[in-house]
């Protein structure tokens, strides 16, 4: 198949940007030292690690001492939830999170519930947004952590991280936000100021897979989950992945430079995509459209068709997108996010996520709209619904 690939799956992962690649190369070649080693190769690696930490801290406007590098978003989320839970277990055992979190938060919260913690999963409204008043209502004297994502990975819906952070602060509760899908997509200065713990991932911002970070505000109670050496301020043992971390820091710098212009460009493409789809294909609905969203994400229900069938047709034409339902992985359950928004199981079966990125052009958008119109028509002709 010689068709050029059209990649509309940037919320899954992104291609490596040249800046990140160049930053990584020395550590894949000659500068292979262990940052903990005494000798000059070790010192060189340590210096590079610290410089990446300073670069990322500058991007996040925090202190380098507050940046803990991890292997990625999943590990950072595990570290935040398990670390606060362990550190504060004698003060309280109540944790609040939302029904639409990424599985790395949801499953971790469920595991903690199995270990004797009391977890409240707050619902979302029809637009897929958490109501901060709901959170305030379920807050108790023994609540130790509120963890709500900054934007949802499936719908792009922005969550009220500011209000939640302020609410948590009023009650003296730690606030964690999984910002994997907002970082590098929108300016997030205010969110950073209101959160005690922030999860970031490198491969969503054109950095390499294998690096991420947990921003840990000074004074936040956090126990070490991965024990061993004194790496990462004693919070995350294990030899640092210097190459990936250097690539991550370079990608982060690149992502925030000119962010406003790029966010506006992508938002315009996303709006063009949705307006043309609505004008071309009957009986579709755009999820979380009335909510504030990150500019690149479009989650659409195509009634009468099943999402994997659309996905395969797209793939056969070189177009990469993602299904809202999880039937692709053999799981019969459709998206927990769309179900939490009140969509029926059947509606959720027909949901697809398109996530645009740096390489996206207006020509690609128009082409995908045209292709989708044909696919949906064909599948609806076959459909028994």
């Amino acid at each position: 198949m010689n068709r050029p690939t059209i990649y509309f799956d940037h919320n899954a992962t992104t291609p490596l940007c040249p800046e990140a690649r160049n930053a990584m190369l020395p550590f894949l070649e000659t500068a292979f030292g262990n940052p903990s080693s005494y000798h000059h190769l070790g010192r060189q690696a340590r210096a590079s690690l610290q410089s990446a930490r300073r670069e990322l801290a500058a991007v996040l406007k925090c202190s380098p001492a507050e940046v803990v590098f991890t292997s990625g978003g999943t590990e950072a989320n595990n570290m935040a939830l398990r670390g606060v839970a362990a550190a504060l277990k004698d003060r309280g055992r109540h944790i609040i999170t939302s029904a639409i979190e990424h599985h790395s938060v949801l499953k971790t919260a469920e595991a903690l519930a199995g270990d004797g913690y009391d977890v409240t999963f707050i619902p979302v409204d029809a637009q897929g947004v958490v109501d901060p008043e709901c959170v305030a209502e379920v807050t108790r004297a023994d609540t130790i952590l509120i963890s709500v994502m900054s934007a949802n990975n499936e719908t792009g819906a922005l969550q009220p991280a500011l209000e939640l952070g302020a609410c948590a602060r009023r009650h003296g509760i730690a606030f964690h936000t999984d910002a994997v899908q907002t970082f590098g997509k929108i300016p997030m200065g205010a969110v950073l100021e209101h959160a005690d713990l922030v999860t970031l991932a490198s491969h969503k911002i054109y950095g390499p897979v294998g690096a991420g970070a947990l921003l840990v505000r000074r004074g936040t109670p956090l126990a070490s989950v991965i024990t061993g050496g004194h790496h990462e301020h004693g919070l995350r043992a294990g030899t640092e992945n210097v190459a990936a971390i250097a690539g991550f820091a370079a990608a982060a710098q690149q992502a925030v430079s000119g962010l406003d212009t790029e966010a506006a460009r992508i938002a315009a493409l996303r709006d063009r995509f949705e307006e043309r789809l609505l004008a071309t294909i009957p009986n579709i609905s755009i999820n979380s459209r009335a909510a504030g969203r990150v500019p690149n994400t479009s989650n659409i229900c195509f009634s009468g068709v099943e999402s994997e069938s659309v996905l395969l047709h797209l793939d056969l034409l070189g177009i990469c997108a993602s299904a809202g339902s999880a039937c692709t992985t053999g799981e019969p359950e459709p998206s927990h996010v769309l179900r939490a928004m009140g969509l029926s199981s059947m509606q959720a079966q027909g949901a697809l996520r398109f996530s645009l990125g740096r390489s996206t052009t207006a020509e690609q958008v128009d082409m995908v709209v045209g292709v989708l119109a044909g696919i949906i028509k064909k599948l609806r002709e076959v459909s028994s619904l």
Partner: protein
Amino acid sequence: MQTGTPEDDSAQEPDASVPEHEEENPDAPYIFYNDIVIEHFTNPRNVGEIDNADGFALVGDPACGDQMKLWIKVDAGYIVDIKFKSFGCPGAIATSSMATQLAMGMHIDDAKLLTDDDIVRALGGIPSNKEHCSLMGVGAQKAAIRDYEQRSSIKS
């Protein structure tokens, strides 16, 4: 700790305290739809409806991801026309298509004997997590024949 000889499996009781991990066979190739399945998915045979059908079936549950409607026309015990409409994943559409292709022209007594394995074999295999899809085509076929037989017994 090894108790008993390797031949003596009975000596190795599974330890309930050890959690079971999801195991993946490292030698199993990553299975995607093969070309036959994809061809039937992109060009499904016998799509449509039959007016004045002799037998009809509706199986599956769209809330669970798939649903199939099947119409048959029977003449002298033979399936002379067959049409389907399916909502579902590529596996569901391809197996629906193959089920109708296999049954077309068959005597209903033979069509009743068709199994999901026959459909999967005719497609050259299907990913294991999609094998349940082929049950829908077989179920629809049996139900449509049953419907035909009930209608003819009422008539006679």
